[in-house]
């Protein structure tokens, strides 16, 4: 993926986590330039992510501003988005903005999805790097984050949860 239209779409910022772009998040799946216009294919992060409508509008507006028309934004549901698709640059940018990037998404070879009881550990503090952190709330201000707290620097931080 290296076309000019791809570059334009790739640099559109995520409306809820504006420190990362759509390409950083890994939700931009394809940008096809055809004589009849541009077709952008996006995979949603969460089923109910309210940012999807804004993302569609932002991508279309950015491409139109770059001279492309008409612009169609399509949804691709399979395979489902996983935080493993967030690029290295995306992870670095999240950490620089004080959001702990996700670890590896839970993998399952076969059988039922295992139940996870008990506290989660092991998310390093994005501010001071300390490992003594704890989950304060499993859900956060956006669908993709949880709220954590660092026992060393005593600051709260958001963690992009692994899915």
């Amino acid at each position, binding site marked *: 993926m290296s076309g000019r239209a791809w570059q334009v779409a790739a640099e559109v910022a995520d409306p809820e986590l504006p420190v990362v772009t759509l390409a950083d998040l890994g939700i931009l799946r394809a940008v096809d330039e055809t004589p009849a216009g541009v077709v952008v294919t996006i995979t949603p992060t969460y089923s*109910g992510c309210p940012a999807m409508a804004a993302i569609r*509008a932002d991508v279309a507006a950015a491409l139109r*501003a770059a001279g492309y028309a008409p612009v169609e934004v399509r*949804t691709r549901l*399979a395979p*489902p988005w996983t935080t493993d698709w967030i690029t290295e640059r995306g992870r670095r940018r999240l950490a620089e903005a004080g959001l702990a990037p996700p670890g590896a998404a839970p993998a399952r070879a076969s059988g039922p999805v295992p*139940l*996870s009881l008990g506290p989660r550990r092991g998310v390093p503090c994005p501010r001071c790097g300390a490992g003594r952190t704890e989950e304060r709330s499993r859900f956060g201000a956006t*669908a993709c984050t949880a709220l954590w707290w660092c026992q060393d620097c005593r600051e709260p931080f958001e963690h992009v949860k692994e*899915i």
Partner: protein
Amino acid sequence: MSPERATEHPAAAAAAEPGNAYEALNEGDDPRWAYGTGFADPLAGVDTRVPSGVDAADLAGYCLMLGDDALVMSHRLQEWCTRAPELEEEVALANIALDLLGQARLLLSRAGAAEGAGRDEDALAYLRDPGGFRNVRLVEAENGDFGHAMARLLVFAAWRLALLDRLAGSRDPVLAAVAAKGVKEVAYHRDYAAGWVVRLGDGTAYSRERMAAGLAAVWPLVPELFARHEVEARLAAAGVAADPAGLRAEFDQVLDQVLTAATLARPPERPGPVRAAGRAGEHTPALATLLAELQSVARAHPGAAW
């Protein structure tokens, strides 16, 4: 769920005046800045043709069942907004409700596309009477206390996770994709509810009493989750649906694991056959009350766009 863009909305009218704040935010036909606009078809660009050998009416009916489960459960969770015991739990319940609303939008859209009668997610959510809803009765029951909410959420999520996990291999690629996504979300919901059931059950004498009461209130609605409607039976045979009866073992295993950690006993179950009442459109009065609120704006202004 996806109101159309309007021309007479105050924001749109204001945007037409030069030099105002809306104009600075709103480039051209960008639909974001008027409340309620900008929702596109959640299946835009997705191939929604019905797979060969699959009955379209059955597929539409099945997607309604799964979509209605999510929509009605989401509404009961939304009712906790401003009523949760702690801010963190309010955020959690709203997030779970949002995930389920997203699943409902996809599934109702899929139902409408399979039906092929021009009904979109809005028509299906807002313009059906209670008898047209296909959700299990578990999700329509009135809210109780927080212990009840966690008992219902644990039961719902454990059951739905087992269901969606099987549907990820459905012969309908749209249903399979929606399910595969939902597995990740509902697994997180289940862990959240399980954590609270353990914390309250293995907590103080009072929290334990309330948690046990919540479980006892929810449990009579459990057997219906595994009753088989004829649409489910036909589509399971066609490789599209999951047989509800086949989910029970996994459900029991998860519930046993949680209840053991919570030092709670599984409530007794009345023996005997159970009908798939909700799947057949037979509901309790609680659903009519819920829908009266959920549908009130759409019903008061038929065909309105804003």
